[in-house]
């Protein structure tokens, strides 16, 4: 049992023959203290999924169990109390434009009926936490996108929730601001011991801060696991497509119209193997000439890994043995033009 258990969740929009299935039986378990990412293309159902977690959407069937309590069985009044334990931030921030930054952060506490003195103290604490203490009296329209999302985060944390839901929270932000917001989410999560569920269509968000990931397509979770595993050994086509965006293999090799002469081979170096002189060892042992087309080091949650794209030329048998040798060293080796070379 995780902190959040989603069991057989389905959601249809409309009824009868015109019904559209947004979720078609999703099972997920989110552990306390982790950052769980859900990635998928538009229409995959990820937004519906996260909105079912605080019942902004009412599921058609299935259960959402948070902290041992079934959200789908709750009355309206119980649900309102349960929602105070879950903060949510949004792609378009959804701040109250008629209230100042401080009053926006105060809003969930006013709703909860806390005393004015309490609220004022907590507002300043929260604005300090998100680095906006000097903007307390500003209106949302006077802030940048990143600042607005910081207010959103402070507001979401106002009633000290256990869970933070992030609905495409960085999708409207530029890459640099995205980095800083992700950094803030990570730090408040560590600081306050939160559990975070986020949805995104951007694999970089997943590799930057998520511990585990679920890949969604057409209302179903097609693959899930620790980010490092899914990233380095993707099984499903959709996962592979997302990963390619990050390592941008297709873009680069396609761009200069390179025609491989031998085996086009992608090698992933994970953990300690990244430090071994693998390529020179391959050259020494086998009658092959690797032409390095591309190489880079990336990070998944701070863990380094290398990606190298090689054009292995030589006798087919030698190339095959070289690939097998690299695999024996626990490298993830994928031959990309396997069709021609059998």
């Amino acid at each position, binding site marked *: 049992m995780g902190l959040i258990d989603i069991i057989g969740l389905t959601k249809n929009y409309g009824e009868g023959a015109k019904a559209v299935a947004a979720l078609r039986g999703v099972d997920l378990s989110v552990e306390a203290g982790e950052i769980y990412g859900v990635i998928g293309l538009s229409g995959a159902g990820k937004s519906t999924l996260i909105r079912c977690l*605080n019942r*902004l959407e009412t599921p058609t069937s299935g259960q959402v169990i948070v902290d041992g309590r079934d959200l789908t069985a709750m009355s*309206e009044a119980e649900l*309102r*109390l349960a*929602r*105070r334990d*879950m*903060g*949510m931030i*949004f792609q*378009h921030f*959804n*701040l*109250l*434009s*008629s*209230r100042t930054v401080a009053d926006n952060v105060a*809003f*969930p506490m*006013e*709703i*909860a009926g806390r005393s004015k003195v309490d609220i004022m103290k907590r507002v300043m604490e929260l604005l300090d936490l998100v680095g906006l203490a000097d903007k307390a009296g500003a*209106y*949302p*329209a006077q802030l940048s996108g990143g600042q607005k999302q910081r207010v959103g985060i402070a*507001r979401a944390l*106002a*009633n000290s929730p256990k869970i933070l*839901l992030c609905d495409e929270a960085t999708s409207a932000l530029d890459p640099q601001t995205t980095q800083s917001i992700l950094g803030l989410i990570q730090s408040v999560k560590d600081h306050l011991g939160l559990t975070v569920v986020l949805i995104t269509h951007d694999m970089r968000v997943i590799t930057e801060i998520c511990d585990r990931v679920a890949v969604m397509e057409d209302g179903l979770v097609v693959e899930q696991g620790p980010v490092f595993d899914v990233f380095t050994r993707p099984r499903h086509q959709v996962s592979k497509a997302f990963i390619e965006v990050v390592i941008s293999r297709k873009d680069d090799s396609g761009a200069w119209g390179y025609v491989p002469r031998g085996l086009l081979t992608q090698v992933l170096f994970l953990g300690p193997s990244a430090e071994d002189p693998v390529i020179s060892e391959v050259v020494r042992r086998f009658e092959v000439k690797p032409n390095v087309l591309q190489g880079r080091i990336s990070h998944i949650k701070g863990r380094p890994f290398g990606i190298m794209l090689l054009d292995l030329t030589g006798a087919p048998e030698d190339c095959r043995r070289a690939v097998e040798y690299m695999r024996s060293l626990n490298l993830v080796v994928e031959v990309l033009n396997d069709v021609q070379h059998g």
Partner: protein
Amino acid sequence: MFSTGSNLWLMIWPASWETIYMVSIATVVTTLLGVPLGVVLVVTRQGHIMANKLVNRLVGLPVNFIRAIPFPIFILFVIPITRVLTGTSIGPNGVIVPLSLAAIVFMARLAETAMLEVPYGVIEAAISAGANRRQIIWHVLLPEAGSGLILSVTILVVTLIGYSAMAGLVGGGGLGDLAVRYGYYRYRADVMWVCVIILSFVVQALQNFGEALARKYNRR
């Protein structure tokens, strides 16, 4: 050009007060009843916080019905109701009832439009913070629509001034009535001019005031 009769201002002052009396009471009544009706029209819409097709239709129906009736006919049509509510069907008090009744539905539509400008995402943010429906209406919907609602009331007042000119039909008085009875039927060009000038100044001033106030409260 003007036959400035000594009694000009003696006519203008009481007529001005009659207009102010009718319009201000009708504005208060209309706002107090029209805005809540607008709230009902918004929150019972499909996909909103109290979605209810039946209620939305039921409220929307008289709104469209009353708007379809020309105002002079409406004044005469509601005389029985006017009698019950104010005890008279003539004079300024006889006009306030039809004026308010007709304007409530007008105001409801204006308020509805203003509140539909509030992005639903903001309401969802309040829902996910644990707000109940009453809190969403009082703390989100109305304040977020504040500047739009101020403009709606401005339009309302200006419209009420226009409609109040038809008060003469039941002896309601006011500047519009004065312009018709003296300015037109008795060829008093001076009365006509003064009425027109006062009305256009007042309307212009109200419009400017309303817009300035709306700007002050608009933080978007």
